[in-house]
């Protein structure tokens, strides 16, 4: 009880603990409020940027309010595509007599100013393909329409298939967002499959935490058992276990992880199995720590007393040894959880992650983003939140671990 109070006095531990609990609460509470399927395909294309999406039809149907607000011209620039802007740049340098440097870094707005200044639709340009001449004419048309405050006419088809004007949208017309029923805020946009990244992230965090937890439990169980056996029994068994532990410490666990994951085959690799594989390749640290602690405990007075009183080895281990190494085991466990989550992410990046279409993991999200080149086309929302989540989880766990370490090994205190 006293130790627990001491642990919670460590600023590092408390910070880590608070962050970790916040993440856990997020994974529990978020799905209660946002109930749709995390892997629901929301968008019909890849990587929609974050923002609020409102139904275009609804805005047209909605009741217009006339507001006297000067409209921002930059809207014009936004409605131009990048290739259109590139074309404008090309024209300006070739025919508009502008320098390359002037054009290169100019924003859409100033490009349009330059364009209206230089371009003359009735003029023909020498050495330009006819199709390109037409393209520039169309582009100019579009720009003029965007620039002039022309009303947009909404027309309906009547029974004779003729368009009949229904209403006009003036540039001073606004709609009230509250009156629009069909809207969706995608805080973190969508991923390559068109799924809501935020919702997916929360569900992936849950799964990854579960993987870390299973891996941690498995690794700690193996490590604890082997460490106790080696440390308490000593002799040949100790030599043997130490030998095996040393082997698996030096052979990179990463390599074993890949070999085993590959060998079990794509179809068998579920979330649970991946967690299990991570667990059985990462127990060596715990074994070492537990073994050395048990060896130092083995000849303590209270253990000898128990031995003399004829207690069974099992009972001695449970009552006279385990409580003393509990802090080390807990610390090792915390590290295992954090490294388990990281291992899953790395495996998934290599394409050896859980083969599942029903749940996402943090690693799989990274893998998908990578496969669809999110990192090359600037869709930061597809991977930064995932990275942040991985870093936060392992940051909080490591802080907790450092805090514990300082409480239990006071000479490390600063």
């Amino acid at each position: 009880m006293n130790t627990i109070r001491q642990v919670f006095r460590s600023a590092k531990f408390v910070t880590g603990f608070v962050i970790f609990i916040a993440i856990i609460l997020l994974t529990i509470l978020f799905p209660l409020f946002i109930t749709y399927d995390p892997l629901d395909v929301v968008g019909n294309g890849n990587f929609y940027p974050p923002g609020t999406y409102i139904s275009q039809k609804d805005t047209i149907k909605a009741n217009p309010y006339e507001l006297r607000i000067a409209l921002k011209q930059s809207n014009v620039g936004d409605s131009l595509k990048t290739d259109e802007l590139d074309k404008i740049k090309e024209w300006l340098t070739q025919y508009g007599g502008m320098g390359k440097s002037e054009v290169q870094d100019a924003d859409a707005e100033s490009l349009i100013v330059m364009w209206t200044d230089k371009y003359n639709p009735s003029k023909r340009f020498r050495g330009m393909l006819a199709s390109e001449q037409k393209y520039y004419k169309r582009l100019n048309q579009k720009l003029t329409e965007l620039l002039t405050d022309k009303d947009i006419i909404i027309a309906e088809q009547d029974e004779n298939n003729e368009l009949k004007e229904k209403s006009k949208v003036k540039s001073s017309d606004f709609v009230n967002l509250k009156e629009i029923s069909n809207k969706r805020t995608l805080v973190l946009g969508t991923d390559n499959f068109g799924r809501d990244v935020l919702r997916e992230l929360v569900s992936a965090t849950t799964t990854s935490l579960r993987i870390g937890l299973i891996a941690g439990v498995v690794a700690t169980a193996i490590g604890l058992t082997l460490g106790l056996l080696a440390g308490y029994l000593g002799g040949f068994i100790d030599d043997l276990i130490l030998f095996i532990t040393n082997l698996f410490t030096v052979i990179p666990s990463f390599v074993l992880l890949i070999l085993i994951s590959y060998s079990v085959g794509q179809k068998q690799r579920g979330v649970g199995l991946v967690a299990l594989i991570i667990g059985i390749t990462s127990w060596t640290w715990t074994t070492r720590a537990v073994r050395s602690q048990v060896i130092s405990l083995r000849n303590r007075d209270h253990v000898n007393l128990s031995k003399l009183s004829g207690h069974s080895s099992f009972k001695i281990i449970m009552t006279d040894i385990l409580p003393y190494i509990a802090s080390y085991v807990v610390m090792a466990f915390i590290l295992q959880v954090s490294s388990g989550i990281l291992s899953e992410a790395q495996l998934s990046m290599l394409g050896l992650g859980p083969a599942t279409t029903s749940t996402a993991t943090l690693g799989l999200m990274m893998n998908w983003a990578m496969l669809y080149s999110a990192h090359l086309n600037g869709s930061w929302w597809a991977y930064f939140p995932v990275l942040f989540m991985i870093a936060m989880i392992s940051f909080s766990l490591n802080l907790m671990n450092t805090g514990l370490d300082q409480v239990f090994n006071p000479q490390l205190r600063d």
Partner: protein
Amino acid sequence: MNGYGKYFGKKIGWYLVTFLFAVVLNFALPRMMPGDPVAGIAAQTTQGVTNTAAAEKIYKEYAEKFGVDKPVYVQFLKWAGNALRGDLGVSFSQYPRPVADILKSSMGWTLCLQLPAILIGWLLGNMLGAIAAYVKKGFDKIILPVFLFISNIPAFGMAVILLFIFSLRLGWFPSSGGYGYDLIPNFSWTFIRSVVAHYQLPFWSIVLTTIGAQAIGMRSMAIYELNADYVKYSRFLGIHDRKIVRYVFRNAMLPQITGLAMSLGTMMGGALVSEIVFSYPGIGTTMMAAIKGQDYPLLSACTLIITLMVLVANLVVEILYGLIDPRIKASQMD
């Protein structure tokens, strides 16, 4: 035999045994899975192959390689013998290129990237950690939390962040590959410049990740040493602080060297994955291609090479350590 000889002999022997064990695992793991390995793996391999003759050939090659009708130890000896001669089989995904040929180039890229990056990251991290431990006030308060957080960003994460900032946003460095895609490797000035430019982001992403963890480890080691009895004693003999700091850092460095040996495998694993982010032509990217292409011979060769590299690096570190730390020599004397 003197203490050093005994120590080195023991270490080398131990690493040989470990390597042998790793080789056995490499051989055995895929074969331990249920089902007929030849049919299973060959079926996976020939999945995308439309040419039936090629598929047949692959199957036969596999059956021969595995030698399923022979006892296990014969299979192993044959496999190991081939591997020793540098014959690691033929790649499935890049058929008929031999695996050894693919690996030869990717191994060079990986070694040139990771060896300097990990070493420099380790050195810088230790220096920063030592400074943080010594200066403590202020400096320690800012630097430490920053490094604590940075050290928790996985290597591939650091890779993505650097890529986004310095390649996509600022356009200072190219985003992928080991050299310009329009170049053919040669010793021209353009090519070398391109290689250097492509080297920067993968290199720094590994360096930064390594720095964080090392700095934290070094800091706590140095703090531990600063509280050691010999520091107090040296102070009370009037020895100058500058000298004492030198003792402390030398001693704090020693466990960091063992730490390097212990975590080298993990560090390389992380660095291999960050290669993928940059499509760097090293083993990491090759390995991902092998997994994607269900190319078992290539994957198993990759893991074997990684193991070998980690083991050799570990051995070198441990031998250096034995030379530096007098305690090792002393412990071998009795």
